[in-house]
């Protein structure tokens, strides 16, 4: 994405609400540039894979033509969610079938390398979910293999293609928050990370998240997505991380923490505080940038800016939609605000109509159509994944870990 320089962005903003909103609205709700059909196979149709199938089905011209899963029950459940697709038990069979032009991969993290390498070799376009891998070695291997891939390869760090996040980044990069003083993020969700099964062997396979040898823990599995938002906005990576974690709620002999907290420190001393738990859902998932002029809070389908009383007021704010949060008033960051305002639908359009997966997949499909670079490349995903792996290591060892991104 071409970087907006501060001067041009603010000159557009100074023109009023129209100028501010028009920048992101060009692609906010997904112009599809596909000419003809794109046949997509989805590999791994657990919950995330089925979500991808549903969102792919909303993109005009995209046909989910194949579904692949080693687990027979999941495969048959996946096939019930798509019309006219063939089912395959292995990626090799699916790639050989001649039924797919592109592949979306949503298998467990530790299996990404094998699946991705096979897809890259086949020359298909590939969308790979994040985190990219569970080890540094696999990150490097996937990155190396992607360089020789014949098709367009996109990684699923979804903030980068999310219209709300793109809009807010424009504000951030043009100094709306002024001096960045701190960063905070959380992901709280009441779940238990157990996938039930009556069959012990299947249970072992399905519950990889609770196996420390195959899981990146909460910092890696969930944190990676959110850490990347800060990397993308600040265009920097943290240099070290420390953290703690423990099993606070689920007394079932699990060896992967259900609650964690960590601090990622950047070269200039700025810190990102991150917390995640599967024992409480309060606040959900969000990221916050605290600056001397304003704070920006992002919550995937929504975004807000909270201005300090002494921050200068810009013309467009007069027309902006606002929401009250206890004692704070947030200016809603809405992609396509001008158009919505003209239609009297500003309030209706406060949240994105589609989940982040839709925009990530749409960006990939458009990159295929345009033969362009997608919003998130494999190398960007590899860096974020390495940060997630380092954070998990810091939490599980109790030691401060230096983040080594050399090689990328």
């Amino acid at each position, binding site marked *: 994405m071409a970087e907006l320089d501060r001067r041009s962005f603010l000159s557009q903003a100074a023109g009023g609400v129209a100028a501010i909103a028009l920048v992101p609205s060009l692609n906010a709700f997904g112009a599809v540039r596909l000419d003809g059909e794109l046949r997509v196979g989805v590999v791994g149709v657990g919950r995330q894979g*089925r979500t991808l199938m549903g969102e792919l089905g909303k993109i005009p011209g995209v046909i989910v033509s194949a579904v692949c899963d080693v687990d027979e029950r999941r495969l048959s459940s996946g096939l019930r*969610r*798509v*019309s006219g697709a063939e089912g395959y038990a292995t990626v090799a069979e699916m790639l050989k079938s001649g039924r797919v032009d592109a592949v979306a991969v949503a298998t467990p993290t530790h299996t990404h390398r094998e699946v991705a390498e096979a897809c890259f070799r086949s020359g298909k376009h590939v969308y790979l979910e994040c985190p990219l891998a569970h080890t540094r070695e696999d990150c490097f291997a996937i990155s190396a293999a992607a360089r020789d891939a014949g098709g367009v390869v996109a990684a699923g760090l979804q903030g980068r293609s999310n219209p709300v996040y793109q809009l807010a980044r424009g504000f951030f990069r043009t100094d709306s928050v002024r001096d960045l003083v701190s960063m905070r993020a959380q992901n709280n969700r009441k*779940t238990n990370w*157990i996938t*039930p099964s*009556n069959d012990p062997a299947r249970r072992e396979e399905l519950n990889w998240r609770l196996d420390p040898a195959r899981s990146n823990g909460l910092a890696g599995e969930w944190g990676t997505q959110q850490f990347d938002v800060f990397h993308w906005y600040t265009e920097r990576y943290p240099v070290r991380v420390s953290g703690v974690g423990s099993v606070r709620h689920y007394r*079932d002999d699990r060896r992967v923490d259900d609650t964690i907290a960590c601090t990622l420190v950047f070269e200039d001393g700025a810190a990102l505080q991150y917390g995640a738990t599967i024992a409480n859902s309060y606040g959900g998932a969000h990221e916050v940038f605290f600056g001397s002029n304003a704070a920006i809070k992002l919550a995937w389908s929504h975004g807000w800016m909270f201005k300090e009383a002494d921050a200068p007021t810009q013309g467009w704010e007069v027309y902006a939609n606002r929401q009250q949060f206890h004692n704070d008033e947030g200016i809603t960051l809405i992609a396509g605000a001008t158009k919505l305002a003209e239609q009297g639908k500003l309030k209706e359009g406060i949240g994105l109509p589609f989940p982040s997966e839709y925009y990530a997949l749409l960006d990939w499909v458009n990159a295929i159509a345009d033969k362009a670079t997608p919003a998130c490349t494999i190398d960007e995903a590899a860096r974020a994944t390495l940060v997630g792996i380092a954070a998990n290591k810091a939490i599980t060892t109790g030691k401060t870990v230096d983040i080594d991104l050399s090689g990328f």
Partner: protein
Amino acid sequence: MHGGLARRRFLAMGCRFEVLLDREHASLDPGAIDAVAIGIDELVVDWHHRLSAFERGSITACINNTPAGEPVAIDPEMYTLCALSERMRVLTGGCFNIAAGTMMHAIGFREESIGDLRGIDLQNAITLDERRSTITRNDERVRIDFGGIAKGFVLDLVREELAEYGIGNAFVHGGTSSILAVGTDPDGHDWCVRTGSVNLCAGEYGIGISEPTGRELNDGNNRIGHIVDPRDREHSGRLIVGGGDERVAVVHGSAAVADALSTAVCVDENSLGCAIDRGIGELSCVVRGVDGVDRVLIDRLGVVSSQC
């Protein structure tokens, strides 16, 4: 609260769902039972997003926003729901109809205005193509709304999940109006639901409860109920009292059928006989009239009693 029950509560489909799973009489360990409850939460919320008439990204919105005459490809599960909805329309003599959403718009239950409904044929509002797995709106003004069957349909899917994991005893309800009872409660008794002065003690059934006055508008002269008569050629959206009933409860093997039929009986009690004659299967039905008296219209399942 019983110690042997895994509980999960969540908001979806415009109401609060509650899931109760018996931990003690299942083959899974307690953590896995909790995971099944979480999985049910995710399943229902997923279908909420797929079916909501209010979400711009839902399949329902996609169908309603696609020009009339243009087929919309839908997945097999969604097709099953559409086909079942159409079957229920036929079985109830048109009293249940997902195209009744059109009238909800016309009356003012939705913000979007769809204009004059004269000449519209709601009994021929959609076309399904099983081979291509498509649904087509036959009139630009038609608006599909699965509100009368969605919760029951999802509860039938929940039942499949429970069976897959070997959970024999469970009770799930959405807003107390769509209910799935499986097996027994932890004490070994049939799950019992009280409606008015009677109890429905159901071992393996779905229960649908409809009340025409649950939500209503007042246009100054008339009370307009949220259950409308899709057969009404005037499309006036008059308050439906279904022969004087203020609440209808239907028990059936399928929660989706129970849900849809309870709506149809609210519209017209005669739809019950019509559905039975046309082969809807065994069921029980209790109605409460505006006089507050409960009447058992039929109890072929033997689930109605005055006490548990």
